[in-house]
């Protein structure tokens, strides 16, 4: 059965101080992004080794300063966070298959729930950006396509869970599917490095960004990762408490 070691949750003081830290970090990210960081000219794309301006509504944007670029400081940290937490959930799926402890399945499931939240946030913030800059709600572009597939995979993870009745079988199937589905994470991550796209420039390759732009981005990234970890911990407590109530109920009845 469940051993006490793996049921352990992080202490309250750590979870709540990280919650506070992520709030402060994201607030500073917000202030810096909007009031300090300079406007960024539109992206350049590398096609056959030559820098080419990305197009928005047929207009070259590499020499225009775009205010809408501010969403970069939120959209990208959330997206990276979703990749990280999916990977985290995948590791717990592997641990479940190796050790057969139900707790790892719970952890993987909660991780996938947080992934779903972050994926939805990424799609929404990305869509706002898309709509504003290109006047289209959706564009079939490599990163968007692979990320949308990621969203579908996370949704089907929960559809699969809902369709299996036996608890142990459900956990095993979900773990296997979680591992197979994770393959899309590296694909989605490297796709902009393989297929040049004006929509998702590789920031570090196209000349990098200034320190005052990098700072809010990194603060946002750390803040977002802390926040998703706090979400995960809080959900995990709820889940463990619920499971204990179930055990107590059956003990009382039996």
């Amino acid at each position, binding site marked *: 059965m469940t051993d006490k070691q793996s049921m352990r949750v992080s202490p309250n003081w750590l979870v709540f101080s990280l919650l506070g830290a992520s709030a402060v970090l994201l607030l500073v990210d917000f202030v810096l992004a909007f009031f300090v960081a300079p406007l960024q000219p539109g992206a350049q794309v590398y096609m056959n080794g030559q820098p080419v301006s990305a197009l928005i509504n047929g207009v070259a944007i590499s020499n225009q300063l775009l205010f809408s670029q501010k969403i970069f400081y939120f959209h990208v940290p959330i997206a990276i966070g979703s990749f990280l937490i999916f990977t985290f959930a995948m590791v717990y799926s592997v641990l479940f*298959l190796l050790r057969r402890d139900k707790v790892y399945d719970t952890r993987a499931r909660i991780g996938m729930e947080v992934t779903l939240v972050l994926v939805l946030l990424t799609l929404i913030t990305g869509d706002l950006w898309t709509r504003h800059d290109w006047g289209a709600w959706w564009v079939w572009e490599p990163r968007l396509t*692979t990320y949308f*597939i990621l969203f*579908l*995979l996370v949704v*089907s993870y929960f*559809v*699969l869970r809902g*369709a*299996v*009745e036996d608890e*142990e*079988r459900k956990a*095993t*199937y979900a*773990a*296997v*599917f979680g*591992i*197979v*589905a994770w*393959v*899309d994470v590296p*694909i989605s991550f490297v796709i902009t490095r393989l297929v040049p796209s004006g929509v998702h420039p590789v920031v570090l390759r196209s000349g990098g960004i200034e320190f005052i732009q990098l700072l809010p981005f990194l603060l946002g990234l750390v803040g977002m990762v802390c926040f998703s970890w706090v979400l995960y911990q809080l959900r995990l407590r709820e889940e463990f408490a619920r499971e204990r109530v179930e055990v107590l109920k059956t003990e009382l009845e039996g």
Partner: protein
Amino acid sequence: MERAVSDRPKISSWRQFSAILRKDIVAELRTFEMITSMGLYILLTLVVYYLAISQASGEFDVREISAGLLWLAFIFTSLLGLNRSLVHEKDQGVLEAILLSPIDRPVLFAAKAVGNFIFIGIVELLSLPLFYLFILQGKPIEGPWYLLIPPLLLGTIGIAGVGTLLATMSVNTKGRDVILAVMFVPIMFPLLYAAVAATSAVIAPGPEGMGPYLPAMAIAAVYDGIMLLGAYSLYEFIVCA
């Protein structure tokens, strides 16, 4: 007693593999159930494609989208076949009987996947002339036709391999075929994209000509390699759950 068990020669993996594969082929040859149902389904798909194409203007060149249409037909037809191939195993208790016998789980996966590969491959080969007749309607294929073989081969290997893993899961769920479709289509997406890109480069090369062909084939090969390795090693967990 213990000595007797350990001294007994182990049945070789090849014999285990060929026994299961032979069973699948014999069962199929008795009823032709998978091939007829998949064949009819793909024929119906082509008829429905006609509805869409019939509304297009005269200048519309169907070759530009025909690779996508072809793989769409393949993917949905193989969903049907994959589901069939495991529903019988489950409903008649064959899978349980196989698991009771001393057969290595990875061998079971290989045999089922190869069986599915053969059946899906046969249906694909049968449907290609029909596709040429009904959809391309005699319009010539621009590139050399034999270049269609690698994308077909790599695509079908991936479909059969990953499909066998997912179908073994979905057959134990409440919504069976729906669950299989929900899992299968997004997982197969990268492979499908590569297969369509390569097929399209042969049927109707764009401005870049055969440029996208080799990268797409490389993506398909890497995808197949990773996914088959994953499916091969994860099958044991699925089938024993």
